[in-house]
């Protein structure tokens, strides 16, 4: 049978060996040094922001004691690093220079906070997606739990802080609990919304093929909501970073939240901005990683961003 021209082109040669579109896009991107342009724009964006701040300082509008510009709070890394050590130095019988070095301290602190973010995010995601799917799978479960979940989702993480301490005292557990409780409820609602957004045609196709309810959920609904859920995960990654600092300010041994509290109590704006800078870089890096993962996993999604750019 003859094929329409448009179809013929798309059918083209070497159909059997075609790579997913996103993968080939990735390779051409590398060749075109597209990533370099992107990096350039990122640097420019940050430089612009830092530059305006520096100008304000140079003109004397920003008091360096209150709003120290980047060259001040990033200037003496070793000095700033010392504040990150909340380890053993103040204990009886410890020399002042004992314990980890400044660099090690920063790494320990950053590592501890990052671990709390990821453990919390992972727990919240698994629980919320599981709960969301259960809510739509079992009608009675929906009626039983959805009102309570909706009721609890607007509660601020700050309100959960005392609860976290009552239940878990001091340490990693309350910090992780805070992250989970802050993300869980609206991640459940997001999951339910994603499931409700699945095209009814997809479900009807599966039904006419004789799929059971379980197969429809496993083979159709879960893959269909995956793109949306990754998006939800990305946004909640930022949410987790926000909450973890509040949680850590209660006392967890070491963590970015503790450093911020130390800076607040000792009136040290440089340390505040330094910590903010570290969090920003970490959040940016993990978001980038998640976006890369998204592009690899969700190769089938249309590139709407490119279309908007063409307008």
């Amino acid at each position: 049978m003859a094929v329409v021209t448009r179809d013929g082109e798309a059918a083209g040669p070497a159909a059997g060996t075609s790579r997913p579109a996103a993968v080939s896009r990735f390779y051409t991107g590398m060749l075109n040094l597209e990533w370099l342009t992107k990096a350039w724009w990122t640097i420019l964006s940050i430089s612009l922001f830092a530059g305006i701040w520096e100008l304000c300082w140079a003109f004397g509008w920003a008091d360096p004691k209150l709003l120290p510009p980047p060259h001040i709070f990033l200037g003496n890394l070793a000095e700033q690093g010392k504040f990150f050590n909340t380890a053993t130095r103040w204990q009886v019988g410890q020399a002042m220079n004992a314990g980890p070095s400044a660099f090690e301290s920063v790494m320990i602190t950053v590592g501890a906070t990052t671990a709390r973010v990821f453990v919390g995010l992972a727990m919240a995601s698994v629980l919320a997606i599981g709960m969301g799917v259960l809510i739509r799978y079992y009608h009675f479960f929906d009626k039983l739990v959805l009102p309570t979940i909706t009721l609890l989702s607007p509660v601020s993480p700050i309100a959960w802080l005392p609860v976290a301490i009552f239940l878990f005292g001091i340490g990693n557990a309350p910090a992780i609990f805070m992250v989970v409780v802050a993300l869980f409820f609206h991640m459940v609602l997001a999951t339910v919304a994603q499931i409700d957004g699945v095209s009814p045609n997809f479900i009807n196709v599966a039904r006419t093929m004789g799929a059971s309810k379980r197969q429809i959920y496993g083979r159709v609904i879960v893959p269909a909501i995956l793109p949306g859920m990754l998006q939800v995960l990305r946004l909640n990654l930022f949410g987790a970073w926000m909450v973890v600092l509040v949680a850590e300010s209660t006392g967890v041994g070491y963590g970015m939240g503790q450093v911020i509290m130390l800076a607040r109590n000792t009136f040290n704006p440089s340390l505040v901005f330094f910590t903010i800078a570290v969090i920003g870089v970490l959040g940016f890096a993990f978001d980038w990683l998640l976006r890369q993962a998204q592009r690899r996993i969700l190769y089938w999604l249309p590139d709407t961003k490119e279309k908007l750019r063409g307008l």
Partner: protein
Amino acid sequence: MAFDAPPTFSSKDAVVCRGVGKTWAAGTRRAHNALTGIDLDVAPGEFVVFLGPSGCGKSTLLYLIAGLEDATEGQLWSFGDLVDTPSPERSLIFQETSLFPWLTVWENVSFGLSIRGAGKEERRSVAAEALQRVGLKAAMDKRPDELSGGMRQRVAVARALAMRPKVLLMDEPFAALDVQTRARMQDFLLDVWRDSGASVLFVTHHIDEAVALADRVVVFTSRPGRIKTIVPIDLPRPRNLFSREAEELRIRLTDLLRDEVDRAFAEQEALAVTA
């Protein structure tokens, strides 16, 4: 039920409808009667086109026959069995693309087999055969988003064929395609229909399409949908659509449809005034 005595029909008939109707949101304030009193027999291997104005319930009837929705009046049978659930024997093809974007073309085509737990070898060979029949075997390992609209609909047809259906239900499958592609797809569908021996129930609001394809055209009234009349298309196949007979049929169908469209418009205007 609409009758007391056992219904009289041949159990060999592909689709039998007796007094079938559907009221959406029944028992609520938003209830509206989409379809009522449908009696229809479709023979095995017959090509029947449902023609009617928008919103006349012709798609609803297709969903009822597919078993995706329950009739609120009357009953339906397919090859002697009561229709109460969906079945792979009655495949539905939608207007919009309904291919799963996360699966390759061949995985889409063999989705129904994987539901039954068939092994990869079997699935791939059945998919290859079905894709061969729609002329897309070369695109087996592609993703749906790499195909044009016409190709995607052919893959959807292949997916239906892979289940070896006895009845193919098509809900305006070519409505989203351009005119040239649509004409090609009609020829393609006739080839598939002849090869497969399945009955085809095809919903459209294009008179040209109805005359090109159908053994019989079922003309619907506007809401609630009833069968206004059934027009047999006795043109020999392959059809010369420019013949006088074809033209006369088109004129006749146009007249039948125009009354209904006029009535539907008048009703909508009346509704707009009261609302």
